[in-house]
């Protein structure tokens, strides 16, 4: 099959027939754009603004351009005038520069003068101070002599016995108070121990070591012979190492006025009720009743 034949066949291709109702549908669907009446068109052109709008717009544009050019020209001429004024004002600039340099030089000289004056004043002040200080060595010598004299007079005077006694008394009082404190802590430990052991007091200090904070409270501070024990631990400590006479019995809690421990140095007594009292040995005496120790007034 050659090209001519192919083209002939294609040119005679069947043409499908449209449905019969399509023509009516198409004709019914004709919706032409409504043509404007000539009168209306004429009326539109009667509006002068609409008709002349392009020309007016261009004119306004040109006018605005002209106004802008005029404003800029005015501005430019003003600037030129200002420039000329400034040029005229700066014509004598070299002369002004020279004056300015001379003025700056004069100002620097004035500052230098003020500085020199101030230095001079400081020098005068220093001279006055030097004159005052020249008299000081004599004063120092005099004070040293007086000091020496007073020291000599002080070393020649003996220390009075009253002064030493005062410090000794204070030391003794402090030790007594410390002893009372020790016994109070011991009494508290006895009560705590009894609370854990059927309300019975311990008869051994080492046995209730858990209730005692330190070995130091078992040594009276005035008992100089036993001070070495204060460094021991409870594992090394023994009941006979204490300064206090510990005579507590298990049932002492029922006899609150009986003595459970006492200090033979200060005569501080720890009662079974936990209180600590100091008795004057000249007015009180120790008595034993039913195997327990009490303290009573010599002359009731």
């Amino acid at each position, binding site marked *: 099959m050659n090209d001519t034949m192919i083209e002939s066949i294609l040119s005679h291709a069947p043409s499908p*027939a449209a449905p019969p109702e399509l023509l009516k549908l*198409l004709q019914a669907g004709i919706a032409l754009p409504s043509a404007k009446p000539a009168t209306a068109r004429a009326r539109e052109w009667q509006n002068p603004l609409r008709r002349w709008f392009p020309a007016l717009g261009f004119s306004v544009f040109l006018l605005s351009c002209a106004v802008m050019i005029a404003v800029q020209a005015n501005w430019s001429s003003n600037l030129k005038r200002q420039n000329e004024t400034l040029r005229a004002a700066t014509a004598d600039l070299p002369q002004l520069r020279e004056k300015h340099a001379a003025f700056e030089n004069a100002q620097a000289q004035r500052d230098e003068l003020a500085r020199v004056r101030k230095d001079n004043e400081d020098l005068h002040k220093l001279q006055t101070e030097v004159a005052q200080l020249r008299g000081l060595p004599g004063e120092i010598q005099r004070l040293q002599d007086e000091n020496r004299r007073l020291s000599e007079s002080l070393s020649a005077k003996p220390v009075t016995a009253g002064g030493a006694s005062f410090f000794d008394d204070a030391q003794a009082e402090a030790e007594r108070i410390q002893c009372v404190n020790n016994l109070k802590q011991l009494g508290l430990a006895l009560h705590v121990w009894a609370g854990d052991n059927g309300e019975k007091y311990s008869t051994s200090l080492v046995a209730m070591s858990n209730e005692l904070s330190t070995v130091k409270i078992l040594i009276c501070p005035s008992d100089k012979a036993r001070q070495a024990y204060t460094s021991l631990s409870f594992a090394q400590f023994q009941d006979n190492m204490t300064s206090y006479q510990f005579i507590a019995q298990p049932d002492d809690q029922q006899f609150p006025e009986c003595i459970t421990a006492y200090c033979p140095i200060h005569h501080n007594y720890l009662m079974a009720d936990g209180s600590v009292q100091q008795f004057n040995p000249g007015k009180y005496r120790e008595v034993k009743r039913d195997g327990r120790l009490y303290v009573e007034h010599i002359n009731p």
Partner: protein
Amino acid sequence: MSDAAEMLCERARKGDGAAASELVTLFYQRIFAYLRRLSGNDEDAADLTQKTFAKTWQSLASYQRRSSFSTWLHGIAHHVYLDWRRKRSLGDSQSDEWWETQAADAPTPFENAAERELAHQLYRWVDELDDEKKQAVHLHYYQSLPVSETAEVLGVAVSTVKYRLREAVAFLRARSAKAESRIERRIV
């Protein structure tokens, strides 16, 4: 017809409904046939024809007479078909049976059944062409538009249309040669 169509178009632009009706009568068969061959069924072709004319009336005021009314109308139909096809995402929708039916009903210059069979075969091969070549064949051969008007409808250069037509014919020739050799081998 062209001058008559132009005159009718001018009248229709001025709002003459009778002229528009005459334009429809003049062109609806051709437009329907064009869209029917492309779309593949009567219903879609009728819808597309109605859309084509509706757009024609809408755009009538913008018709500049740079081409003939027929070309302009075919251009609208072409774009309506492309829109429809893009929305439906269709491939080739033509069926062999349709061509056979159409060929049997329509008067043809072919003398014998063998030639008719060959023509049917040729039309089917046209549907196998790619879209650009197929459009060129439809407009130029089926719709009998000159090459220049075909180029205008498709929005391409005349040389491009010529090239596409040449390629399409070459393709059809190659297919027919292959088919003939197959028949000869069968006879031998």
